[in-house]
């Protein structure tokens, strides 16, 4: 500790160790919180088409079109260890060829400091709702759920499902030659 550089080295290393301990303390205070809130999903318009699917192995697959409303209050999730939330809407159903299908229809990033009351109306899906085959037509039970990925400052990134879901059924016939 005789020279300035040796004192500065010791000081800086001690500061970094204390900083690491504070970050661990921040993680420990929020590690076991339940990050689920109630979510309300409504569906206004459902349509189905049978189109060429160039990414799949067969000629034509079912393509679903869903227009929905989402409302949720995400404020209780944000604390001093949450940097942002990655929300995504999943459609889950079963067909004759596959027991479980899950398709992500829409997603959104909510940063800390932005408006946390989610109230979106008449939202079209962002991603194509293609089925692996023709299992969407006359499918009685498609469940829509909103989940999110919590991105923290320090710690684990949990995937949390919101409580509340919406079941819908697809119609029996395809729409033909109608623009969406």
């Amino acid at each position, binding site marked *: 500790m005789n020279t300035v550089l040796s004192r500065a080295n010791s*000081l800086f290393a001690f*500061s970094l160790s204390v900083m690491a301990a504070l970050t661990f303390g921040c993680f420990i205070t929020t590690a076991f919180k339940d990050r689920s809130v109630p979510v309300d999903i409504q569906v206004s318009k459902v349509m189905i088409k049978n189109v060429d699917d160039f990414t799949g192995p067969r000629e034509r697959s079912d393509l679903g079109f869903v227009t929905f409303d989402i409302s949720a209050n995400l404020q209780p999730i944000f604390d001093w260890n949450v940097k942002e939330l990655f929300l995504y809407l999943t459609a889950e159903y079963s067909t004759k060829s596959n027991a479980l299908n899950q398709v992500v229809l829409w997603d959104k990033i909510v940063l800390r400091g932005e408006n946390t009351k989610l109230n979106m109306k008449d939202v079209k899906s962002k991603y194509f709702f293609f089925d692996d085959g023709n299992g969407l037509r006359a499918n009685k039970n498609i469940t829509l759920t909103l989940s999110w990925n919590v991105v923290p400052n320090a710690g684990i990134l949990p995937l949390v499902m919101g409580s509340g879901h919406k079941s819908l059924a697809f119609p029996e016939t395809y729409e033909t030659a109608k623009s969406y």
Partner: protein
Amino acid sequence: MLSVFKSIPTHMDYKGQKLAEQIFQGVILVSAVIGFIYGFTIQQFGWTVYIMLAGFTISCLLTLPPWPMYRKNPLNWQPALPETSGETRDKPQENQKKKKHK
């Protein structure tokens, strides 16, 4: 230019070094506790980091330059011996050795 920095005296005596280490450890720990409690209260981790950085700056200013409080116990060196008395002591020994060989 570097020789200018090297010529500035930056030494502290031993008790001063111990005092400096205690001071900076204490300041940083206190600012860490204050920062943690304040950040937890307003639920923003950014403020915890800012308060820690303020504590780091304060302890840099207090302990890096050699203030007079770190030089209160200087070491007591023995006074230096003058050169001439060392040479006269050697010469009589050499004369004694030559007489023994005869």
